[in-house]
């Protein structure tokens, strides 16, 4: 069976600078794949290029059997890719409920949307309590939950998560990683970008290590977690 997402020799960047050099990776259906690496390694650029926000300069991205070359971001969403982006990018003056509704922008099945809203509120009860409040007034952890729930509202086949643990209290991080694990158990494929390598490698099936825009190491997550070089470089040992 072909992979859900196949990235082949991807090159992209900003202005005159290439950030990614020949990145290749795959995500199979039902997998959690972690991408770890230092600040500036190109993790966010990889997600943004896959999502069509940043234009690929070379290489191919194939998602669910379709070549994404040149496709604009808003069309890629419709193919079944949802993203909780770096910095969460909540709509600050829309309410929590409106933020979630924006997540379902590509959908027209009203009963299905209402169902999924209930699911999100069950998953993150705090969002139900705050549903009338402006998104910008939520705490960082609540915004992260909102960003994930908003991405899920499009019913994606593949969920891209960019640093879901950044800046959050440890118990919130645990809560969010539990949710990611549960989502995956119910069949969601996840591409997870994290600086918190230990947490990411614990829930992931496979992992890619990025250094200055190149994949320098890839294996089963448990192997990566126990590799002495990775432990020294990313796990602070």
């Amino acid at each position: 069976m072909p992979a859900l997402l196949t990235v082949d020799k991807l090159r992209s960047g900003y202005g005159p600078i290439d950030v990614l050099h020949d990145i290749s990776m795959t995500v199979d259906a039902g997998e959690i794949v972690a991408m770890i690496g230092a600040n500036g390694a190109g993790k966010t650029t990889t997600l943004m290029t896959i999502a069509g926000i940043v234009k690929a300069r070379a290489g191919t991205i194939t998602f669910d059997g379709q070549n994404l070359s040149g496709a604009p971001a808003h069309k890629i969403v419709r193919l079944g890719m949802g993203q909780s982006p770096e910095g969460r990018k909540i709509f600050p003056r829309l309410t929590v409920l409106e933020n979630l509704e924006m997540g379902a922008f590509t959908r027209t099945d009203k009963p299905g949307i209402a169902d999924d809203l209930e699911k999100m509120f069950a998953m993150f009860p705090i969002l139900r309590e705050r549903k009338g409040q402006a998104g910008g007034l939520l705490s960082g952890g609540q915004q992260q939950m909102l960003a994930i729930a908003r991405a899920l509202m499009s019913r994606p086949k593949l969920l891209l998560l960019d640093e879901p643990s950044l800046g959050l209290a440890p118990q919130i991080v645990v809560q969010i990683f539990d949710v990611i694990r549960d989502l995956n158990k119910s069949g969601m494929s996840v591409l997870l970008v994290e600086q918190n390598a230990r947490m990411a490698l614990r829930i992931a099936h496979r992992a890619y290590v990025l250094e200055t825009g190149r994949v320098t190491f890839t294996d089963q997550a448990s192997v990566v977690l126990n590799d002495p070089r990775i432990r020294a470089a990313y796990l602070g040992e």
Partner: protein
Amino acid sequence: MLLAVEPALWNSLTQYLINGLTFGALIALIALGYTMVYGIVELINFAHGDLFMLGSFASLSLLALLGFGGLGFTATMTDASSFVIAGVLIGCAILSVLFCAGLNFAVEYTVYRPLRNAPKLAPLVSAIGVSFIFMNAGLFWGGPQDVNFPDLISNDNLLGKDAAIRITYKDVLIIAVTVPLMLALTIFVKVTRLGKAMRATAQNPTAASLMGIDTNFVISATFVIGGALAGAASLIYAVSMNTISYQMGFQNGLYAFTAAVLGGIGRIPGAVLGGLIIGLVRSFGSAFVGEMWVNALVFGILIIILIFRPTGLLGTPVREKV
């Protein structure tokens, strides 16, 4: 003591209020175009006032074509029946709205869109350039002097010939056009799918793309709506003032831009509030301070308000937590 004020003064005050509100509503309609565009692409579209000016020349040309005079035409329309005039006005409204909406769309598509990812100064300077191009087009179209616009609507006082307070059909027209348009826009932005997409794009374009929103389409739609409002404003301005010129876009555009900033740029209710304040300041200012000080007064008040509320009266942005 206000209660001790004599009736004549009350009448004058009421009159200034009416004049201020009608002019303010007109300015507000133009200000909406500035504020919506700024809200979504953070561009001060300096050409917006001149777009408004070109809209009234488009109406004037249609009138000339229909035999209602044209450049140099001065007579009052007294011989045409009110049905004919209503039909002509509707024709002018359709033309000026489509003309301004189409022109604004074209400028966004050809001038601002290629500069979408350029430094902010580049589209700003381009907007000033477009403003001058429009103004020159207006100069070519109407000539350097003030041009009479056919007086299609009666100047009779609705309250009777000898009433102390004067409300004309023109005042009624301005309110009857501006208020429903502003309400419709507010509701549109609040409840429709496109309106929600506009708000989302204004607040975070990248996130909006990630929601499946075609942000280029949303930006085009914003320019089209802002242009359409300027077109509507251009016709009621010309019909009620009866004088247009290639320079009217600069002066009124500046008022409208100021109104948008005063109310909190990017905020639709802010533009309306700002427009009304400017209209009232102008009206009461020219009565009590003097015509020649009106602009100093308007901009003086702008500066004072901005010192105390730098984001404008209704501009209290919720800061995004990072």
